[in-house]
């Protein structure tokens, strides 16, 4: 009887257990599986081939791509969010809505849509030709340009949303007070607005930076074969059984690089705040 009482008392806990089991079984254990797979065999056997300039270049390329994507998104999203939050008035919500709506569609579809714009006979070339800016169609696809355009296009909402959330919290009277006290508009932006919206900047930056480091569909489809990135390399390795261990090892290597890069950037950003304050 005591046993049943005990069970009855613990029912809420028992109800919650499947969720925890699910999380451990299908999230925590798989992550450990990667580690296990990479470290089987001779120690560091599967890591060795990746300490090669070729793979170093892949890593650096992905890092540059992720970093420039984060910075580009920030530099476009920040003024835009400023406009939406402070100047757009009643159009605020619809404006935000319009920026987010397209992104709930399959993102391969956006890549497909950009083909029509960037193709040799596509929209952009036709426009530039008819405006007389260029004399012959440009090769826009399979270049850094097309990759970055697509990356910025796709990741922009991840920057806008946290920024906007932070802007909403910002007390506009601070802005007015700063202007009243004689600071110029630029000074106000630099010394009042940016420090106040720093949490949004940081979370937006990492929401863009982290996934774009592992991105593989965009560089592969927009960049052709010239832009081998971390994500593509990992997927090539992992999807065939013979190289799966190498893929796992490379995944761990990339994760370490990503963590180090993120921590460094975070440290730099927080140092920047301290110096200014």
């Amino acid at each position, binding site marked *: 009887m005591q046993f049943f009482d005990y069970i009855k008392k613990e*029912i*809420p*806990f028992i*109800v*919650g*257990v*499947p*969720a*925890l089991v*699910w*999380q451990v079984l*299908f*999230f*925590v*254990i*798989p*992550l450990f*599986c*990667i580690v296990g797979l990479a470290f089987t065999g001779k120690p560091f056997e599967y890591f060795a081939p990746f300490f090669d300039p070729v793979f170093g270049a892949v890593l650096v390329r992905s890092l540059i791509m992720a970093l420039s994507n984060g910075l580009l998104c920030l530099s476009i999203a920040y*003024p*835009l969010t400023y*406009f939406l939050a402070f*100047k757009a008035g009643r159009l605020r919500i619809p404006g935000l*809505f*319009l*920026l*987010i*709506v*397209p992104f*709930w*569609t*399959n*993102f*391969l*579809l*956006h890549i*497909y*849509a950009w083909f*029509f*714009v960037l*193709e040799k*006979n*596509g*929209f952009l070339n036709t426009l530039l030709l008819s405006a007389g800016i260029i004399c012959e169609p440009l090769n826009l696809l399979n270049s850094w340009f097309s990759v970055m355009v697509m990356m910025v*296009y796709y990741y922009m909402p991840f920057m806008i949303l946290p920024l906007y959330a932070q802007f909403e919290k910002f007390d506009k009277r601070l802005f007015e007070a700063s202007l009243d006290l004689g600071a110029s508009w630029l000074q106000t932006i630099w010394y009042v607005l940016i420090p106040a919206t720093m949490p949004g900047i940081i979370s937006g930056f990492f929401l863009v930076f*982290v*996934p774009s*480091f*592992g991105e*593989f*569909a965009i560089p592969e*489809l927009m960049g052709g074969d010239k832009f081998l990135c971390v994500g593509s390399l990992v*997927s090539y390795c*992992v*999807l065939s*059984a013979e190289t*799966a261990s190498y893929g*796992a090892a490379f*995944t761990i290597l990339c994760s370490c690089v*990503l963590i180090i890069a993120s921590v460094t950037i975070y440290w730099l950003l927080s140092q920047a705040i301290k110096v200014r304050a």
Partner: protein
Amino acid sequence: MISFKNSIKKIVTFCAVAFVYLFFYIPLAVLVTFSFNSMPFPSPWTSFTLMWYQELFSTPYVWYALWNSFIIAICATFLSLALSLALVYMRLFRRKSSMVESFFSLFYVNLIVPEVVLGVGLLTFFVLCSVPLGLMTLIVAHTVLGLGFAVPLINGRFAELDIRLVEASLDLGATVHQTFFSIIVPLLRPTIIAAGLLVFIISFDDFVLSYFCSGTSVQTLSLYLLSMLRTGISPTMNALSTLLLLLSSILVFVFCWTTFSSKAQE
């Protein structure tokens, strides 16, 4: 002079903002336009046609892939909602346990870990356990991703609820069950709907996890789109894209509507 400067400023701002919106919408506009063009892409606009839609409706692969994606998304949505509600149920009666709280923070990690890493991990896990890849593995993978959104959303809302309501309900003689189902769930309903839609859309559009966990037997919408992308441009794909855009716009509209109307109620 000042008004002249101001109007210049206004025009420049307007142009910049308009440029960003054009950047977002021109590709989609071009895409939709070419789904109605009677000649395939490189040729310019000729005449209006619904031919490609007809062709789309007579392609069985598309509907097979769509159906798979739909089933996966529905299952993932229900599983992640059920599991996150179970967690709420657990938390309702074990508020002070720090172990439980640390379990909750575990779910936030789902969003931080890059999807590629999660995909690789799940793939190795399934291969190690010799689980055949297919619909089941896809549902499992998408549920893990969905939990990363559903648990923080629903638990966040639950934490905002007035705990006195629960106490009042229990004081007045309701059982644990009754309190959960007639107090907590109705209060959480807008959030549950919003989280459900979010998980559904994310699962429906997910590419990376599907790419790793699908094996060779099952095709989802994303994988179908990928194979179409690799073969090149075809107007039926434009027709499909147009329909998908329409569908997701409706879903997002419902999502925003439920979120905003629940906010307005407060």
